[in-house]
């Protein structure tokens, strides 16, 4: 009998440490800066355990029943903690608060466990023996946890399943104790059904963990995945490392927080310098709000109309405080009007004219997106422009995929646009290309830039327009709906590059 209780000490200790490790890892995944996250989480956890230990003195009667209650509760809360944190990350206004509340709660409950158990065991052992045994098992459990966690659990089970698994162990302890000490326990029936219910919840979660986050996916990315969501249109994945936050759509990098300013400043400011009027701006794509952030730096801009297909994207970048801090809450600005619609469809119905249009679609890596780079699209776009409007189009890498890049240029020219192709270096992307275009002649109309730019300056632009020999203009066909040649160029060139 006693050995059983001691074994539960071992299990409890393992579980306790695992929850702590899970919370720490999760915090550093989700919030970055692992040193700070780990030490504050551990601190908070240990402190809460102290609170738990303090409260243990108030339990005087029916200790075994209370212990079982406790085990079930720890199992449930610890078990669902990481799933809950992943899910809440997107929605919670202050994720940090939720995180520390959960850590505090788990810590307190775990802190109650050992004192309670020692109280139970104190009549069965000599005090000396008791302390030595309990602590021995406690520390062995901790060692076991600290070894299996990084080596086995995170790589093979993932965070969600790890916490589920240990939650199940906690509840299992409750059940074993329940069965073995049947006669000494009050409310045995009630406790048993409660334990079984918890086990069902946890096992269910364990099985469906994939739905919450595909583990395979977290392996496909360089850095830990902190958020992933399959909207009706795409798979949105955020990863976080010590250095940066990255957004991937369908596995393709959209930005790295470390250098996205280069990409977005180069996307926005040249077009703004070249457009005579700048009050009405249209963004097609760009649901991350970064392009809008750059545009809002111009007081002249009266309205930014942002048309992005995916409500999940714009919602994420509007509501999540960490992401909104990246785009300076541009999506909350009264000057920004967000429309969730298909760009082609929306253009068909649109009757407004825009001074500047930013076209920031995903790369033309498949035939569906390829349609947004065709003559049909640019002809449709023409109806949203005045003769002097300026358009800019993100056009993949002129270094990796020169044919694809020059194909965008050729396609615009075929639709009678004047163009200025240019490029810039974005470390996380490499050499990146854009095409500026206008139905009328393109000339610089402004000299001054808004304050606070980190990369783009008026002098920089002429360099950007210069293409070295390895990126020189190629002879290419224009992209039509019935040839989709751009997708083929893109696949060929990027395919080779990735081999």
């Amino acid at each position, binding site marked *: 009998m006693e050995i059983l209780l001691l074994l539960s000490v071992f299990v409890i200790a393992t579980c306790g440490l695992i929850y702590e490790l899970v919370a720490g890892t999760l915090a550093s995944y989700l919030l970055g800066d692992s040193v700070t996250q780990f030490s504050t989480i551990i601190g908070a956890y240990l402190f809460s355990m102290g609170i738990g230990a303090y409260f243990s003195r108030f339990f005087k009667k029916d200790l075994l029943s209370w212990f079982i209650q406790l085990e079930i509760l720890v199992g449930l809360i610890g078990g669902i903690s990481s799933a809950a944190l992943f899910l809440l990350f997107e929605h919670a206004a202050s994720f940090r608060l939720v995180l520390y509340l959960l850590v505090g709660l788990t810590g307190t409950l775990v802190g109650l466990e050992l004192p309670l158990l020692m109280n139970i065991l104190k009549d069965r052992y000599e005090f000396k023996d008791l302390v030595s045994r309990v602590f021995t098992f406690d520390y062995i459990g901790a060692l076991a946890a600290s070894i299996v966690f990084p080596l086995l659990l995170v790589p093979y089970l993932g965070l969600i399943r790890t916490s589920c698994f240990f939650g199940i162990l906690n509840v299992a302890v409750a059940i074993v104790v329940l069965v073995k000490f049947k006669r000494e326990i009050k409310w045995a029936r009630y406790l048993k059904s409660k334990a079984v219910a918890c086990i*069902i919840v946890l*096992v269910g979660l364990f099985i469906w963990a994939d739905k919450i986050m595909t583990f395979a996916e977290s392996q496909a990315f360089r850095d830990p995945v902190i958020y992933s969501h399959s909207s009706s*249109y795409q798979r949105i994945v955020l990863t976080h490392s010590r250095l940066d936050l990255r957004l991937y759509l369908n596995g393709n990098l959209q930005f790295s927080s470390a250098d996205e300013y280069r990409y977005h400043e180069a996307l926005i400011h040249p077009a703004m310098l070249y457009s005579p009027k700048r009050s009405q701006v249209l963004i097609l794509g760009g649901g991350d709000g970064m392009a809008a952030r750059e545009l809002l730096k111009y007081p002249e801009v009266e309205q930014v109309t942002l048309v992005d297909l995916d409500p999940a994207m714009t919602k994420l970048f509007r509501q999540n405080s960490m992401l909104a801090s990246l785009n300076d809450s541009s999506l909350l600005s009264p000057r920004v009007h967000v429309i969730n619609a*298909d760009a*082609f469809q929306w253009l068909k119905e649109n009757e407004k004219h825009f001074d500047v249009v930013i076209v920031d679609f995903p790369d033309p890596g498949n*035939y569906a997106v390829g*349609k947004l780079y065709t003559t049909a699209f640019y002809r449709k776009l023409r109806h949203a422009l005045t003769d002097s409007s300026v358009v800019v189009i993100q056009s993949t890498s002129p270094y990796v995929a020169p044919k694809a890049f020059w194909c965008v240029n050729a396609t615009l020219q075929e639709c009678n646009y004047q163009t200025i192709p240019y490029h810039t270096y974005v470390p996380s992307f490499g050499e990146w290309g854009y095409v500026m275009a206008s139905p009328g002649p393109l000339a610089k109309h402004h000299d001054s830039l808004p304050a606070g730019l980190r990369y783009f300056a008026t002098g920089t632009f002429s360099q950007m327009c210069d293409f070295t020999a390895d990126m020189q203009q190629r002879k290419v066909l224009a992209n039509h*709906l*019935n040839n*989709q040649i751009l997708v083929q160029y893109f696949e060929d060139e990027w395919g080779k590059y990735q081999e």
Partner: protein
Amino acid sequence: MAIIAGGTITVSQYVACMEKKDKYAHISSRISGASAKAGHMMRDQQFGTPDITEYTDAVIVGGGAAGLTAARHLHHSGFTNFRLLELEPHTGGNASSGSNQYSAYPLGAHYLPIPNTDNQPLLDLLAEAGILTGYDPNGLPIYNETDLCYDPEERLYIRNRWQEGLVPQLGISHQTQDEIRRFLELMEQLRKAKGSDNRYAFDIPVANSSNDALYRELDQLTMEEWLTQQHYHSEELRWYLDYCCRDDYGAGISTISAWAGIHYFASRKGKAANADSSQLLTWPQGNGRLVQHLQQFSRDKTQTGCVVYKITPETKQVLVDYYDINTHQIKRLVAKACIMATPQFITQRLIPGGQYDHAFVYSPWLVANITLDQIPESSGYQLCWDNVIYQGKSLGYVNAQQQRLTQQLPAKQVITYYLPLDHLDPVASRKYAIALSPQHWVKLIADDLEAVHPGITELMHDIDITVWGHGMIRPHKGFITGDVRAAAQKSPFANVFYAHSDLSGISIFEEAFYHGNKAAGALTDYCG
């Protein structure tokens, strides 16, 4: 734990049990198609004397592509006092279309190849419909980009993989490759070839093709016989040609004449400023797009649900007797002249002394529009507009979503499955097809597609089945150059004009269009 495991076992047993019961039960289905009932009524019923008699200048019987074209021609000639009678609740005939909340889809005809540049009337029609937007400096037509079939166009499921294009390429021998090359080169030559009368050997409309015996003789062989004669033995090439014949004529190379089989390739000389000659025009609703354009010229003159059962030509007028399904009345239209835009097996029953010659053979067809959650991915080349199965019973399916511009797909998608019913002779196939219940068709279609897309049955929701008992005229051996077809071109009556694609021996929109214009032209000449 035990409880949970027990739970899952019972659930999976339950599922297995359901599956055994009927794995197609979740798929709703119905059969529509040319109203066999109305047809039989026309054939079998004795109608009394008409209740109502009305007068007009001209009547067009049949509102398929040919009848609608004739109406357009009359309209453009300033000839406005005419009526068009159609037995179905809608005009369009074999080029009709349907739709559901997710997509429009064709019930029959699906596409128009890039027209030959000397077919000016057809180019004018396309310009009028906004499909052709202008001409480039070299005089080549520019087509509206959104009406051209979007890339990627075609793929073939062969050796358990999808390959790009329909000509077999995956895992074929050098010998076969050579044969295919030789065949396609020959077709290229024949495309340019002209007969001693300086007409193209193979042209569209068929009527413009050369009369040179050198080429006409090809009609005396089946395509299969000709292939043997020309030493084309490769299984893959023969399959491909069999597929082409089934696609255009509803019957394979053992039935179709070599002339018609070659016509499929050599008659197409289309050119465009912004498309290859091999490309085509298509829309989610298929040739329903062309029908919708044509309909405007006779909208207020069209009476649907009207079964014409007798034509009585007299010296100065024609009596057109019909049964109006909507009002259950027998009516008569008295006109100066009429156009029979109905197939010959019907026309010959309506005119006095008419004899339906069984040389006019029609291929029965099944077209099924399948609504499903998604088209499953499978190995090899990606989803295309046309998705064909090597050595399949069916021709595979066309993806209605291909011509969408938007990124988002509808919640469910529609594919159009084509099955020429050529496993029996046409009469037997027709009987078989009519006898089969929708549930049987569902099983047949689902099982066929399972071979290329395992699990697709589960994704299906609804199948809209159309059976075309007399879908396409069949250019069997000797038909195109034969006397029967020649004799059928002209009616024995001065004030009755024939217009149906079957007169060409080849069932395509261009032929229906040709005959519609020709008959309407002759009618306006006659009426002065």
